[in-house]
């Protein structure tokens, strides 16, 4: 399992009620089910991923987070997880608002466009960065709204979203990924 998932799972309280938005093939959900909380559900758009979740015995709702989060009542989950998909939504601001409405806390991870490799790539090569976490070319990337850890922090401050941050400057340079716990 990806290291990111262990780090996300560590942030989830035991036996809490969890929604994994864009749960993919269910790897993280399975880990959380087995180790942290059985009360977890996922939303996933891709039919083949939905089937992979089903085969893992996970509760999954086939659907589109951008449209379907609105059906959940306020505060209906203790944690809502969004792993590396925020930047791929048409309207990430709306999705963030929905995550914070539906979840008492939101755990959000983003690929960090401020990582030194990304900066170096653009500086030296003058082309759009392609790295392990950002494997696509500019013409086929699903990532519509890239940001840096610093951008994300600034955004949360502006919108009065509580965000846990330590050693931000350091992280913005050295982390390929930012993982945040957000609260409204």
């Amino acid at each position, binding site marked *: 399992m990806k290291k990111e998932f262990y780090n996300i799972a560590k942030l989830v309280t035991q036996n809490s009620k969890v929604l994994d938005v864009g749960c993919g093939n269910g790897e993280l959900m399975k880990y959380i089910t087995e180790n942290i909380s059985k009360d977890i559900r996922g939303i996933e758009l891709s039919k083949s991923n939905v089937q992979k979740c*089903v085969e*893992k015995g*996970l509760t999954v709702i086939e659907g589109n987070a951008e449209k379907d989060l609105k059906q959940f009542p306020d505060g209906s989950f203790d944690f809502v997880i969004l792993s590396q998909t925020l930047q791929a939504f048409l309207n990430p601001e709306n999705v963030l608002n929905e995550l914070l409405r539906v979840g008492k806390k939101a755990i959000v991870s983003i690929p960090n466009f401020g990582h030194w490799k990304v900066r170096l790539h653009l500086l030296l090569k003058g082309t759009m960065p392609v790295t392990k976490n950002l494997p696509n070319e500019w013409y086929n990337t699903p990532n519509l709204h890239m940001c840096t850890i610093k951008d994300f922090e600034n955004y949360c401050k502006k919108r009065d979203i509580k965000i846990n941050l330590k050693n931000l400057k350091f992280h913005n340079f050295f982390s390929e990924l930012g993982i945040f716990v957000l609260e409204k």
Partner: protein
Amino acid sequence: MSKFKDIKKIIIEKPLKLDCGQTINNYPLAYETYGKLNGNRSNAILIFHALTGDQFASGINPITKKDGWWSYALGPGKAIDTDKYFVIAANVIGGCMGSFGPSDINPESKKPYGTNFPVITINDMVNAQYNLLEYFKIEKLFSVIGGSMGGMQVLQFVSNFPNMALTAIPIACTASHSAQNIALNELGRQSIMADRNWQDGFYEEQNKQPDKGLAVARMAAHITYLSKAGLQEKFGRKLQERDDLKFSFDADFQIESYLRYQGSVFVDRFDANSYLYITRAMDYFDLTKKFGGNLSKAFEKSDTKFFIISFTSDWLYPTSENRDIVIALNAIGKNVGFVEISSDKGHDSFLLDIPDFLKTVKYFLNTSYKQIK
């Protein structure tokens, strides 16, 4: 009826007040079971059949000598694994496979009820079947499962008995019968009633059968169970045992011949009045009605864990209507999963060998069962 003398049935003495206002009692409910009830009676599943189904969901139907309607899904090692679960299936009231229906003899007139049979609803069907749980001394079902009209019964069951089932799988169904579906059912009913042999519903006492009308009803309905793409792929414009068009009204095309065949075999196993009554029950189905249009309220008291399944090419009970049930459950924070299965087989998909569908049912049941153990 004598052909049903060897099938299992219970006589329900307890009066049942029907939605139409009449009360029935001492009526038969025919059922079949598969698998074994375990020691603590925790592995029971009640499955509900669709419009033309019956209690013989798996194995060979002793009356029709054909495979049960859910043979792909139900049996040893299958999605609903009868090595593990004890499965009960009943024939709905209004039906024609041994349960109380319009071809039963009215003890007062000594003649078949015909259209003097009371109009029944999905609610009535479910309330009648509830008696089976008492009969088998089951305090809580592990699951309630059904497709199409069977799915409507699943929804009604959970609404009526909110804590009697741990899990529920409504498949390819709706919480409220649409205008299109009422229209299609009306087409079938009018076809039956236009058959001269129907005799206002009293055909049996005159030894007549409205076979033509019932066959046309079935043909029309059968089209709605398939998809355009599925029909095109299977039949296209292929001709039936001929090299060219015959310039007549014979069944030139394979699809015509296929539909005629479907109609002709259907009349051998189904009663025309039952067709009227059951389609009427479907049309009357609107689970939101009692709750001021708010479907969530129908499930408010329930702790049942739902898994809802729809099919991409099902235009009779489309994904949108199935998703409405998911939305209603999510809106009140209930536990629900939902999958739309890719299939070009239309509404009929739930009866067919569609691996993703069968896997979904199997994994959901097996995981839920593990959690209660």
